[in-house]
């Protein structure tokens, strides 16, 4: 047990716990209203939105998994950087429009918008269920981040249920402050979390290369097959197309995730989102540096150090960064770094559980089970569901093999991408028919799941054969292509029958911000 690190960790954890409960009183609102509890009253300004979205997108799992991928697989793992760059022009163009229409009609979720735009509660249900299913394993993986850093401090490495007690305590805390404070809690904690993360990463990228003798030496120590993407052979685009499609497909998928949408809708104006599209790349820079720490762990040779052998055995390459931190820093700073990662798991886990419970409440509970409930009952339901969601994630990570969570998260990315036509296209045109969108969604799910299945759910990259050329690419993007094709072909056919078209409660002027909305 590393008592110094544990003490620092517990102190910082205690600080954010207090913050989480105090947050209920911050920018006071009536927390029995769903848009107050679940969207912090849509009052978050540029700075808080920046921290909240940053805390949301760059999660504990990101901080463990991205360097682990670079550590294990090399340059291909770096796709996280182009992905988190090209996502921001998309955010800039699309999300202010989403914000505008959601603000006008008090939409809390993307499925609310689909319901309003297409008057189809089945299409809204499809979007809601996809969001919930994609979010659940993501929450579980935040716990993995926590589990790894707790293990790194020498707690609970023996395995068994007793080893999971620190994790359970952390989760009870998380559940309690999310329940009382709603989205205000992660918004406030995100400020602390990101400050710690910035400090940790800056320390890593300065101290470790210094210990290794500079960046030149660092890169010279990386085997050439990991340093660059291998040049594709004849008849295939190899890792080139995989790298590009992973970046593009992940960028498309990112803001369809319920937790991203929740953070976006909680901002106080569309301009806040536009400004954040320009400022959020600061986090991408950080993520790129973080990806490089995978190489640092490789160059420092932490995997072959005997003191880390048991943890590498248990957590595989996910232990690369915790090992590097332990290897390079004094114990007290390791405590700071592990707290940064641990709290980095709490923030997105809180937002994700709020987002999932908003979806369940709005688009399943109220839409199908209890249509006449009061607004206070609606909010109460959402608060309870947020507990259930987190409990589910906890059970998932403790009792099921880790591999399941990782594979489900991989599938989740493919599935969530299939809601793009219904949600994003809907922001620009009402031409698509809700039934065509529903069939397209189902088709995309089948194609994407089948593609991932051909790799044994080990990889999201599918080797598409085109005219003798193999184009390995992100299955989410290929599935989306078949989805869009179905929507385009079937919409005019369904539109012949007026009854299938549904009603549209939005007006052109509701979308006033974003692309194509220059007029006053």
């Amino acid at each position, binding site marked *: 047990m590393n008592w110094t690190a544990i003490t620092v960790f517990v102190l910082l954890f205690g600080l954010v716990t207090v913050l989480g409960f105090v947050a209920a009183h911050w920018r006071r609102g009536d927390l029995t209203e769903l848009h107050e509890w679940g969207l912090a009253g849509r009052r978050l300004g540029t700075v808080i939105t920046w921290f909240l979205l940053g805390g949301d997108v760059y999660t504990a799992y990101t901080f463990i998994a991205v360097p682990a991928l670079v550590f294990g697989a090399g340059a291909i793992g770096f796709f996280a950087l182009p992905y988190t*760059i090209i996502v921001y022009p998309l955010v800039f163009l699309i999300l202010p429009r989403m914000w505008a229409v959601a603000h006008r009609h008090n939409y809390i979720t993307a499925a609310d918008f689909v319901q309003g735009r297409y008057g189809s509660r089945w299409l809204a249900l499809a979007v809601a269920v996809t969001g919930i299913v994609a979010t659940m394993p993501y929450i579980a993986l935040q716990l993995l981040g926590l589990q790894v850093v707790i293990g790194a401090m020498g707690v609970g490495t023996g395995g068994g249920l007793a080893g999971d007690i620190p994790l359970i305590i952390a989760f009870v805390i998380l559940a309690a402050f999310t329940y009382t404070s709603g989205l205000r809690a992660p918004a406030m904690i995100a400020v602390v979390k990101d400050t710690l993360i910035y400090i940790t990463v800056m320390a890593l990228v300065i101290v470790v290369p210094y210990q290794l003798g500079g960046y030149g030496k660092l890169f010279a120590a990386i085997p050439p097959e990991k340093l*660059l993407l291998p040049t594709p052979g004849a008849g295939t685009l190899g890792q080139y197309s995989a790298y590009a499609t992973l970046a593009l497909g992940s960028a498309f998928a990112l803001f369809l995730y319920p937790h991203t949408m929740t953070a976006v809708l909680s901002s106080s*104006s*569309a*301009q806040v989102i536009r400004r954040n599209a320009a400022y959020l790349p*600061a986090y991408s820079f950080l993520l790129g540096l973080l990806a490089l720490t995978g190489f640092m762990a490789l160059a420092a040779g932490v995997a072959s150090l005997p003191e880390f052998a048991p943890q590498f055995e248990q957590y595989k390459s996910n232990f690369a960064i915790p090992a590097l931190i332990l290897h390079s820093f004094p114990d007290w700073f390791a405590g700071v770094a592990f707290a940064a990662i641990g709290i980095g798991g709490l923030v997105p886990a809180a937002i994700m559980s709020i987002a999932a419970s908003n979806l369940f409440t709005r688009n399943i509970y109220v839409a199908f089970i209890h249509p006449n409930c009061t607004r206070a009952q609606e909010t109460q339901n959402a608060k309870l569901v947020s507990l259930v969601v987190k409990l589910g994630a906890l059970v998932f990570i403790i009792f099921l093999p880790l591999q399941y969570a990782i594979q489900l998260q991989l599938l989740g990315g493919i599935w969530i991408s299939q809601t793009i036509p219904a949600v994003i296209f809907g922001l620009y045109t009402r031409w698509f028919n809700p039934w065509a969108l529903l069939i397209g969604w189902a088709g995309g799910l089948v194609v994407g799941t089948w593609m991932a299945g051909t790799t044994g759910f080990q990889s999201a990259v599918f080797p598409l054969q085109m005219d003798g050329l193999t184009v390995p690419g992100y299955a989410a993007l290929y599935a989306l292509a078949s989805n869009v094709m179905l929507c385009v072909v079937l919409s005019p056919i369904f539109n012949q029958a007026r009854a299938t078209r549904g009603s549209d409660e939005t007006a052109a002027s509701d979308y006033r911000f974003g692309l194509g*909305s220059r007029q*006053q």
Partner: protein
Amino acid sequence: MSRTPGRSTSTSAGSSWWLLLLLIPFVALLWVPFYNRFDPALFGIPFFYWYQFVWVILTSLIILLVDSRTREVDAADRDDRP
């Protein structure tokens, strides 16, 4: 990315051209063979890495530029706030 037809006015058409700048990061980063190389290295950092880092900053600057050129009067955004 289609634009809702008939919504642009003549004054807006000019400022919409700025949006095309947002395509540049896509071209720069999705054409992988262009930057998948070691040289020219910068302080020992291979081109593949520092090139992508440079695009973080460039993309941020492009978005700031486009935002300032296409920003709407905030009053339109404020009038329906609670």
